[in-house]
């Protein structure tokens, strides 16, 4: 009985498989419809993959620019402009990549593919606002960021339809950073500023930490003002922001308390050891 049932099954399955093949080959309306769906889905997935790839490149290059910018604390003032210019050059390269994203998104709903490139854009916001802070000691605004993401593209003559190629020769592409991405990028910036602060204390710079703590406090107040009206990730980052702010405030506290006791010429030594102390604390936690 069991055996016969088993046979029945395999035969039934073979028949079903055969039937399926016949159907797959035939031009039934269902199969025809699904061939169209296949094409549409593949196109969409390909675009998504391309965007993810560009976004990764944007992330990597932005991170490199940030590392480069961290070096400005350890060099004398005279050598800073070349570093800043080099960082600016790197960011210009990043902008070219964002131009590619804008090109991919031409005529699309940018929110459809937003997940593919949001990480890269946040990293870019972080890098560009970090550079802006080092230069101008202020927070770059969303408008300023968006204003630099305008691209002129030379119109490629369309090989399929040369008649349609616009004679004007160029078109303008813009890329808009969403307020949420901007916010998340700025939240990341605070981590970099904390590192910058500790780094400059290590180098005996006693002005930067106070400026930074003030700036960070403003940003922190801003984030508290937004609170949980923002996207979910913002409230997560707020916690890290608090930690960064705490470290910077501790550093300023130490500077103030011990700065009055110790002769100016010994300050650098004191804060070198103070940072070492902070670092070991970090290691334990």
């Amino acid at each position: 009985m069991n055996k016969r049932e088993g046979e029945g099954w395999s035969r039934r399955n073979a028949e079903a498989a055969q039937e399926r093949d016949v159907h797959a080959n035939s031009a039934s309306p269902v199969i025809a419809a699904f061939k169209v769906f296949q094409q549409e889905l593949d196109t969409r997935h390909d675009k998504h993959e391309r965007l993810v790839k560009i976004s990764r490149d944007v992330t990597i290059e932005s991170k490199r620019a940030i590392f480069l910018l961290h070096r400005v604390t350890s060099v004398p003032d005279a050598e800073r402009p070349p570093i800043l210019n080099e960082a600016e050059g790197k960011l210009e390269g990043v902008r070219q990549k964002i131009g590619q994203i804008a090109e991919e998104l031409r005529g699309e709903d940018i929110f459809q593919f937003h997940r593919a490139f949001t990480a890269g854009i946040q990293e870019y916001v972080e890098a560009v606002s970090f550079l802006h802070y080092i230069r101008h000691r202020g927070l770059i605004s969303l408008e300023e960021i968006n204003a630099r993401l305008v691209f002129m593209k030379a119109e490629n003559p369309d090989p399929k339809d040369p008649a349609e190629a616009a004679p004007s020769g160029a078109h303008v592409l813009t890329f808009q950073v969403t307020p949420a991405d901007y916010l998340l990028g700025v939240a990341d910036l605070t981590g970099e500023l904390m590192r910058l602060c500790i780094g400059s204390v290590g180098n005996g710079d006693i002005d930067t930490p106070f400026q930074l703590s003030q700036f960070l406090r403003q940003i922190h107040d801003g984030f508290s003002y937004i609170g949980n009206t923002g996207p979910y990730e913002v409230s997560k980052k707020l916690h890290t922001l608090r930690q960064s702010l705490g470290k910077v405030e501790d550093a300023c506290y130490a500077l103030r308390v011990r700065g009055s006791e110790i002769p100016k010429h010994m300050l650098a030594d004191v804060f070198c050891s103070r940072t070492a102390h902070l670092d070991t604390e970090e290691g334990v936690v």
Partner: protein
Amino acid sequence: MSVTEMFSCIQGFLSADQDVREDIRKVVQNLEQTAREILTVLQSVHQPAGFKDIPSKCARARELFCSVRTQMGELKTKFPAEQYYRFHEHWRFVLQRLAFLAAFVVYLESETLVTREEVAQILGIEVVREKGFHLDIEDFLAGVLIMASELSRLAVNSVTAGDYSRPLRISNFINELDSGFRLLNLKNDPLRKRYDGLKYDVKKIEEVVYDLSIRGLAKEAESGGDK
């Protein structure tokens, strides 16, 4: 621009965004209500008594789709048309249910697979993105997959109600659907997860067909149909 100004500007943007979402949620709630009503009407085809009266149930469902169209029209006014995907998550679930219901009605009426254009027309929306509020292809396919599991249930219940020919037709239909889905290269996403369930529906229906054929009931139904 100072830091405080910048943040209050962004805060303004965020609360405007929340207002829009609140509006959308209200309309989507109504849509869900209507979808449940349609589902209740269509569920009764599983009752033995319901089999005799499929056309009138479809007609009733079609009437209810009228209010879906009005509610969809209302939903369209709640946000800028080009920001469809920004708020997509809010109506994704209900749109899939509605696509399923539309596909189910069309199947019960004509035993064919609904086209995307038909679903869009039943729901009063567009097919392509450029024209406004549209039916995303993934939502359409998800709706079709929900229908497949509903049909496997229908196959079982139609046997109970004494309709032996329906499972055979459903089997053919589902097999065709299955080979259709095989053509797609799905990513590891929710749609793929749902597609993975299709094989159980196929299996279930094959079991029903098998049970009928070893008892000669399928033949009987065929000859009965020929008469």
